[in-house]
């Protein structure tokens, strides 16, 4: 009689545990065995009720009877369930022997579900998982601001260029930006024979020759980038032979190379002009350039 009265009072929106959502009406009471709001599952509207609750991985069978309805703090009797599934089932059968069959069935189902999710929790604990971390906006903004200022202070392009120039001076690229030693020696001998050098003049001339060599080598690399090394060697051999034979064909080749780059056309045109002016100096300059 009192169960029916309670149910009629709380059924229509008078229960604080009721949760109505689009998928159905649910119950938030922790003692509810199924989580659904209906007459048979309501722990308030049933004076004789049982459920299973979980405390830190240990399951307890909670039982409520009408004889203790007048003692709220002793209303629920608690029995610890063993960890083993079969033994827990036996305990439930023993304690709920004379209870309604439907209720016993629901409690057994609840035990099955909770056992399974306990096992799953244990497995997940052993797996490696990504850790979710916060990224506060203020920290991010500060980080970006400081990075911008550091980038301005770094002056990356300037530093890289100066670093590469220093390496060039120290001779890290010695093999690439100079002619092979044989030709270099011949050039030095030519200079010695033709002109009586002083120390200063020697230094200046050497610097100039190195510069030209770098330019020529760079052009070669750019033009014949795709060809293998063997071809380059063959080309060099051909050049040396032609040098010995004639002077004029050598003068033509740099024109062809220079046409690829616009900046070089002006420079080489200047050289040609100087060649035309004086006959005696022409021979010397041609040899030095080679």
């Amino acid at each position, binding site marked *: 009689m009192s169960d029916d009265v309670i149910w009629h009072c709380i059924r229509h929106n008078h229960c604080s545990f009721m949760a109505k959502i689009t998928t159905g009406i649910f119950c938030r009471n922790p003692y509810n065995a199924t989580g659904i709001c209906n007459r048979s599952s309501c722990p308030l509207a049933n004076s004789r009720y049982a459920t299973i609750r979980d405390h830190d991985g240990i399951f307890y069978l909670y039982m409520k009877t009408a004889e203790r309805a007048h003692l709220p703090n002793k209303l629920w009797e608690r029995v610890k369930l063993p960890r083993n599934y079969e033994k827990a089932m036996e305990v439930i059968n023993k304690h709920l022997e004379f209870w309604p069959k439907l209720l016993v069935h629901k409690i057994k189902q609840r035990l099955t579900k909770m056992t399974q999710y306990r096992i799953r929790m244990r497995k997940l604990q052993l797996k490696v998982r990504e850790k979710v971390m916060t990224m506060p906006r203020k920290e991010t903004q500060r*980080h*970006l601001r400081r990075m911008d200022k550091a980038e*301005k*202070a770094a002056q990356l392009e300037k*530093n*890289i260029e100066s670093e590469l*120039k220093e390496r060039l001076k120290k001779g890290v690229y010695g093999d690439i930006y100079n002619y092979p030693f044989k030709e270099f020696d011949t050039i030095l001998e030519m200079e010695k024979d033709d002109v009586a050098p002083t120390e200063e003049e020697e230094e200046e001339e050497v610097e100039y020759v190195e510069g030209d060599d770098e330019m020529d080598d*760079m052009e070669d690399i750019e033009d014949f980038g795709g060809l293998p090394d063997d071809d380059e060697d063959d080309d060099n051999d051909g050049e040396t032979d032609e040098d010995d034979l004639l002077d004029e064909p050598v003068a033509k080749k740099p024109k062809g190379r220079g046409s690829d780059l616009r900046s070089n056309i002006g*420079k080489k045109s200047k050289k040609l002009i100087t060649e035309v002016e004086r006959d005696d100096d022409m021979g010397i300059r041609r040899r030095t350039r080679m």
Partner: protein
Amino acid sequence: MAKERKRRQPADAPPPGDDDEGRDHRREKKPRKERPDPVLPSQIKNKDKRKEVHAKLKREKKAQKRKLARERGQAAQRAVELGEQPPEKLVPRTIENTREPDETVCRPDDQELFAGNDADEFNAVLKQQTTPKVLITTCRFNSGRGPAFIEELMQVIPNSCYVKRGTYELKKIVEYANNRDFTSLVVVHTNRREPDALLIINLPAGPTAHFKLSKLILRKDIKNHGNPTSHKPELVLNNFTTRLGHRVGRMIQSLFPQEPNFRGRRVVTFHNQRDYIFFRHHRYIFEMKENKIASKDKKAKTSESKSQPEKQVICRLQECGPRFTLKLLTLQHGTFDTKNGEYEWVHKMYHQICCHTKVVIIQLPWDYTSLFLPFSPSKNLSLLAPCSSRLL
């Protein structure tokens, strides 16, 4: 030469100069204020009046500053006309040149440092006993710009290969990489379709560096970008001067081969500034350039039939490949292990805030170019590194 470089570099940055001159102005104005009635704008209750007075004061300060600058310029011009030496340029104060020295700065004559290098985890790779071999992988969720970034990263780092992550744990991946004789493992972490972290694990026995990655710009987004060739790039490491920076620099160096192909004219740069490591990838070319003065000398020399005019070497850069910034978050002993791993260094925000002038932990006063060159202090940078905290 060294002194000139020191002066020139700070002079190129006008904002710090402004700050410096501003300070001078403030000092000069104090005696003036004391003589008449000192009117502080903050003491005026009326908002409009206060604003007016403050604006007036600010205008006076600016005028004073401009006046001083003009006087300095005129003095320099007069000195040049009279043939005297111009007065020394004022060096603006920057965070770099006012930083307090850090006790862990590596010195060129430190025997303990060299011994430590020989006993290093990176020694085998850096002495060319082992060829560097890099395995690149991702976190579990890889989408957005992550794959494109990895493609470009594989072009930057020679002898690197990409393996899909799948569902394997990182510890298993480390074992797999050790069995396949990889020397480094790089994990690109992607968050919300944007790569935001880089994990570099040196194999076989660590250490593990965890970087925050930001401001990633891919090759296609760079205007006038170049396309890299397959030559082995040369490496530029700037300002890795403290012990921690030295260690990080060697780790980065162990990713790249020790025999760069200079013919390819390809350079990869890791520049450290105020604890941020800036990555750049360039192709370069050296060119000759004539000076105006040299042209005049050229005419005289040609008439006198003397030697050739002097020419200046210029280096031009073309950027290709990704551009990003790294910041070191943790440096861990051994391979990746978040629970039981021992940390060599962990980034702490509090430490960074309380001593602002000591911010930089990785930056050092001299360039780290141990590629083929002996250790030598850099003439350009007289900066001293800040203090660093370690958990050992």
